[in-house]
């Protein structure tokens, strides 16, 4: 209703102005910027192939280490004459795909474990708690370092590994909320109607706790980006010739004094992206999560 009302009130103004007004009413300015930035990143991730002017391994040996602002290489080139802009676009895609896949994986895995703990209690619950203790005892970066170096780094391993990041958070939330939800009327009602446990948990309880889970996904997502870029920076994440944001920073580090743009461009992207997700995530949490109020 309200949406229609404001729309009629603003009929006289231009479309852009109306849109601006409406977003300003709905969200603070910084959150709006964050959303725009994230939308741009998603757009780049989807259309990286079309957008990038050169191949990521295409070398232009006659113009190596060219600074930004060059007519054909807007963001300059690296030590092999590869276009920084093209590599940047591809890196955004790789980093976002890994972070997105891993966030989904860890949400699914953690929620399933949390539900299992809530459903079976007893031994299963203790096992899940022991697993969470184990996770808390080993910093994730260190565990993944050991695993990656010993199994060799591949894209699949990386996504799966990152998919374990933060599962204990979802498990804890899902377990707590599922236990309290199963005590509520609607859950016992569908149980009385003869619904299977699977149906009760996934069709009835899950939709009721989804908003809290989505909010924790916004917390996990930037952390996974940071984790992946950290690993790639150490040379143990995404492997060349493929490139990710962290791995660009890692290689650009060699040219910190002579060609800082190689490292600064991906560094800025990482910072702005994680910053945007945090701002938007905080805002979403205030809007969606009933437990913080």
């Amino acid at each position, binding site marked *: 209703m309200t949406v229609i009302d404001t729309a009629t009130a603003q009929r006289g103004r231009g479309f852009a102005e109306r849109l601006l007004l409406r977003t300003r009413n709905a969200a603070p300015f910084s959150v709006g910027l964050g959303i725009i930035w994230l939308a741009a990143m998603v757009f780049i991730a989807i259309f990286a192939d079309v957008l990038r002017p050169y191949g990521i391994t295409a070398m232009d040996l006659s113009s190596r280490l060219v600074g930004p602002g060059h007519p054909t290489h807007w963001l300059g080139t690296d030590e092999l004459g590869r276009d920084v802009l093209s590599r940047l676009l591809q890196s955004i895609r790789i980093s976002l795909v890994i972070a997105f896949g891993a966030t989904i994986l860890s949400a699914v895995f953690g929620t399933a474990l949390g539900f299992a703990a809530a459903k079976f209690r007893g031994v299963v619950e203790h096992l899940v708690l022991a697993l969470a*203790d184990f996770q808390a*005892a080993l910093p994730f970066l*260190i*565990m993944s370092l050991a*695993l990656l170096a010993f199994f060799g780094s591949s894209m699949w391993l990386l996504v799966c590994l990152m998919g374990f990041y933060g599962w204990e958070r979802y498990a804890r939330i899902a377990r707590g909320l599922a236990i309290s939800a199963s005590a509520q009327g609607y859950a016992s009602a569908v149980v009385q109607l003869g619904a299977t446990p699977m149906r009760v948990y996934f069709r009835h309880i899950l939709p009721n706790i989804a908003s809290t889970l989505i909010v924790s996904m916004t917390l996990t997502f930037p952390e996974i980006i940071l984790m992946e870029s950290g690993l790639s920076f150490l040379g143990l994440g995404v492997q060349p010739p493929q490139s990710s944001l962290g791995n660009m920073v890692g290689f650009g580090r060699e040219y910190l004094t002579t060609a800082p743009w190689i490292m600064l461009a991906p560094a800025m992207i990482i910072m702005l992206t994680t910053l945007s997700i945090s701002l938007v995530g905080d805002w979403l949490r205030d809007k969606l999560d009933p437990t913080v109020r």
Partner: protein
Amino acid sequence: MINFVLSRLVRAIVTIFAVMTFAFVVLRLSGDPAQVMLGPDVPTSAIEAFRSRWGLDQPLWMQYLAYIRSILTGDFGTSMRDGMPAARLVLERIPSTLQLTVPALVLQLAIGIPAGVYAALHRQSATDRGVIFLSVLGFTVPSFVLGLLLVLVFAVTFAILPSGGYGSWQHAILPALTMSIGGIGILARFSRSAMIEVMGQPYVRTASAKGMAWRDVVWRHALPNAAVPIVTIVGFMVGSLIAGAVVVESIFSWPGIGRLLVVSVTNRDLPVVQCILLMIASAMVVSNLIVDLLYGWLDPRLRSQAAH
């Protein structure tokens, strides 16, 4: 109280045991260290000799038992690279890692908590907004980016601090700063929200309603109660400091545990990696245990809950 301490202790021991098993299983099953250490074109006899020397030709469960037995007697094996005892290699590096992590932790506590508490007491002011913004910025900037930016500014542009290495106290400034910033942000944000929540509690309202001085309300009623969640977060931060040491030591070529881990991992030096994993896990378990106990001490409700 005894029950509470005992249950926490048992959990800690089980966790350390789980980490030991994890390290063993993963590191042994992932590949043949003989092949890696000796290269692809060595005669089979040399590989066999290497395997029997390191006990790699025995069944896995025998290796596991031998491994547990040797760890319990304080023997963490010998580095496959330079033949030194792994424990000695790791212990040698601990002081230099502490030289970074301790100042970083002190900085985090000394800046993060006061900033958060101050922001909470002056809610919606310009300072509050500034603290929020800086703290979000602080924990969204990855440490490797921050470290390189600091090098670019202070070592390359102004040339007032060394860009890396080890020796004088000047060498420690940039790494310790890099390591602390993320934690300062997290702590400031967390103390702020903990403090805001406590200030809204009825007992704080009662205290100020009965005419108690504002300073006393904050120091005697609000802060001790806000301390409970803050202590938990500090416990978690010890883990992120250790993980941060891996990245920061690599950036600044600081000869600590983190760098040793990265080097040993690239060399597939199993005993050293195992030793580091176990040491970090033990440090984490001990710090989590301390947090749990401190928590029970700060909040008597938890003690009685665990006992029942």
